[in-house]
């Protein structure tokens, strides 16, 4: 009995990470996402060339929509690939 009580005398340390996600575009005040800037768009793609979901990047809905349009335009003018592997 005594030994089990001792275990719970000190509360177990659980590290609480405070990495709140935020929308980069809102924070940086970017109003227009340029489809010609491939290096910038590359941040929001995974290494297959797919657009990363909002739950990972933390974009707001408004800018996620604009981002998706920009990426698709970039693909049309062959700045970004439709399908790829090891993009990064």
């Amino acid at each position: 009995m005594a030994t089990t009580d001792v275990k719970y005398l000190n509360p177990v340390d659980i590290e609480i990470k405070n990495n709140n996600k935020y929308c980069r575009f809102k924070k940086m005040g970017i109003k227009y996402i340029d489809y010609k800037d491939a290096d910038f768009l590359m941040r929001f793609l995974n290494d297959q060339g797919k657009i990363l979901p909002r739950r990972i990047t933390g974009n707001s809905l408004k800018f996620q929509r604009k981002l998706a349009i920009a990426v698709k335009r970039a693909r049309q003018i062959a700045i970004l690939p439709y399908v790829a592997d090891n993009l990064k």
Partner: protein
Amino acid sequence: MNRLNVFIKFAAHKIINFKISNMNNYETVFIMNPVLSEDQIKETVNKFVSFIKTHKGTVNHEENWGLKKLKYTIQKKKTGFYYLLDFVSEGKLINNLEVEFKRDERVIRWKTIKLDKFALEYSIKRRNKLSNNKKA
């Protein structure tokens, strides 16, 4: 009553005319065949610039990106000459311009986009930046 009718007709005519003559900002990126010589590239670019000018448009900015690698093959080509045109024109012109692009065999891909107010702001900023870099 008669006067009122005339007035309404006049006003409607004005509004319609205003809408028709409404100018928009557009931006076109097009990719040309990599086999072309420099003169041929200049020729094709001049063709489209003069096409816009003859149809009451004004070209604000031209940008040559040079020979770039394509991320995927287009018509079995792996590279292409990129060119950017910023212009102001009526919406009617765009359809004709696209037809011109389609008919020209030297152009392998093109994309025209209407600029909204944020995009316009951005493109002007970008233009100024580039011109400053050139001077310095």
